[in-house]
């Protein structure tokens, strides 16, 4: 069982109701540093809701979240990000009209410190921090071989590149936990394989824990060390890929009751 005292993310009894509908209930998870955890389940099970709760887009009705022991209760979304949780979105949310580089530079906002006054009068700190940030941005883009596209308009990138950019941008916020919402959506098998490589590469290089939502089973089974299965807002199974693959409750949730059983 995961060692709770060294977890990077502690989710306890998390739950939310929308009006009369219980969208999520009794969600418990302790993610270890550097762990890759997957969250799967049929559409509408509440997976993105979990992400939205973790990033304070919604406020939970029950339960709480702790990041490295720090309670995230009441924190706004940008504070959660500053604390160390970054995310990508199911429907890509890039800053389409800005360049690829600027998308990453925006995520590096909090790694810089200069005030508006220093910006306007171009004091030394402006130059120093901008230079460092740009170097860091390029370094991150290089991980995904995106440097040649640094000055392209983000909205004009091909779909796969946009997804990669979103991940780079999330990484730029220097997170301890990276939430990926359907990162392989719309990708063909070779792109998916490349993505799997990249996720491992990120985990190894930056030491982030990865918590991902996916429908693509090859990816989930391929890189996740642990998988949670959600259905109708409740965890119906938890375990290693092999355990989940053969779990009858899981199979039923996805395929419906088997004939003759």
């Amino acid at each position, binding site marked *: 069982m995961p060692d709770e005292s060294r977890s990077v993310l502690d989710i306890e009894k998390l739950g939310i109701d929308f009006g009369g509908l219980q969208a999520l209930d009794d969600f418990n998870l302790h993610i270890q540093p550097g762990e890759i955890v997957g969250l799967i389940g049929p559409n509408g099970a509440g997976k993105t809701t979990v992400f939205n709760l973790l990033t304070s887009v919604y406020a939970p009705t029950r339960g709480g979240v702790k990041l490295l022991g720090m309670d995230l209760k009441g924190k706004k979304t*940008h504070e959660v*990000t500053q604390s160390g949780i970054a995310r990508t979105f199911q429907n890509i949310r890039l800053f389409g009209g800005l360049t*690829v580089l600027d998308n990453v*530079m*925006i*995520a590096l*906002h909090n790694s810089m410190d200069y005030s508006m006054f220093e910006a*306007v009068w171009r004091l030394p700190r402006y130059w120093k921090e901008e230079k460092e940030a740009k170097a860091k941005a390029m370094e991150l883009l290089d991980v995904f071989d995106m440097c040649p596209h640094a000055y*392209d308009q983000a909205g*004009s990138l091909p779909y796969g590149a946009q997804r990669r950019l979103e991940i780079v941008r999330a990484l730029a916020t220097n997170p301890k936990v990276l939430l990926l919402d359907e990162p392989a959506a719309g990708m063909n098998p070779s792109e998916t394989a490349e993505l799997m490589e990249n996720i491992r590469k990120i985990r190894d290089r930056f030491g982030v824990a990865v918590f991902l939502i996916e429908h693509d089973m090859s990816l989930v089974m391929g890189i996740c060390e642990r998988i949670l299965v959600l259905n109708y807002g409740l965890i119906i199974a938890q375990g290693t890929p092999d355990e989940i693959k053969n779990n009858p409750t899981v199979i039923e949730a996805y395929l419906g009751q088997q004939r003759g059983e």
Partner: protein
Amino acid sequence: MNDKKGVSLDKKGLLKQTWFRYVINTALIVAGYALLMLLVNEHVLNKYQANMLIPVGYNIIMAVSLNLACGYLGQLPLGHAGFMSIGAYTAALFTMAVDLPPFLEMGLGLLFGGLMAAVFGFLIGLPALRLKGDYLAIITLGFGEIIRVIILNLDFTGGAFGLKGIEKHTTLTWTYVLVALTIFVIHTLMKSRHGRAILSIREDEIAAESCGISTTYYKTITFTISAFFAGVAGGLYAHYLSILDPGNFGFMKSVEILVMVVLGGLGSMIGSVVAAFGLTLLPELLRGFEQYRMVIYSLLLVVVMIFKPSGLFGKYDFSMGDSLDRLFTWIRGGLKIRKIPAGGDGDGEAKKDA
């Protein structure tokens, strides 16, 4: 597939040529002023024409400050004229109440005008910016109207009769300096991490929050800065016209400025400047067609919105350095001079424009 270059705040050549760029820009600003003074003193521009440049000036400041909240931040404030009126009245009441050397009086008046407008910008922004899109537009419209009605009903502002006898402190010099200052401040602010944060809110507010940017903070402070400059423009206006009529600062005025920003291109400072220039002078050029002026104006607005909603310049922002860059590259190409990369940076050749 859109192959336009995105708005970039960091070009490859920036760090290599920075000091050079600043020197060039400063030199041009000073040269512009010298040229202007020359034209006026040698009577190439007659007094009337020189005076026309003052409304151009404060309209540029109005348009550029609205563009900050509208084009860069992506909101739609419809009460900008309200901030102008607050600045105008504050500055005017100050200069009328004190008796100092003109330079000091005007300077302080403008400062107080701007600050007062900024205070109201902050107070209005706090509740208003919690709303999105249309609702923000409506509420700022409401606030603008309330300001107008309140000024109309206060005694010390002269009520419906307005304020008269304001000293005509506004000169071409004051105007030029303040226009240059406004453009400078907003320009440098936008080309910084703060400017990027502002743009990110326009592009996708939810994504901006998840990048760690406090959207509430940036929306409020941008709104406040925008109001500040509108207040300064108001101060210039008051000391140019010498009388203030609260009726001039209603929704119509806000719309006039909005037209300049939209026509110029939302998100383009040069667009706001050009449009403010043109639309301020247009009524003068159409002197003979006085009656048709407003019809042409509104028709123009509708036609531009239908056929080119992005306005004259779209989101393009003029950069002196970039234009010079291109000029030099072209010259180099013609003279076949090889470009020698400066040590260390390794950025290489400038990227070809789409």
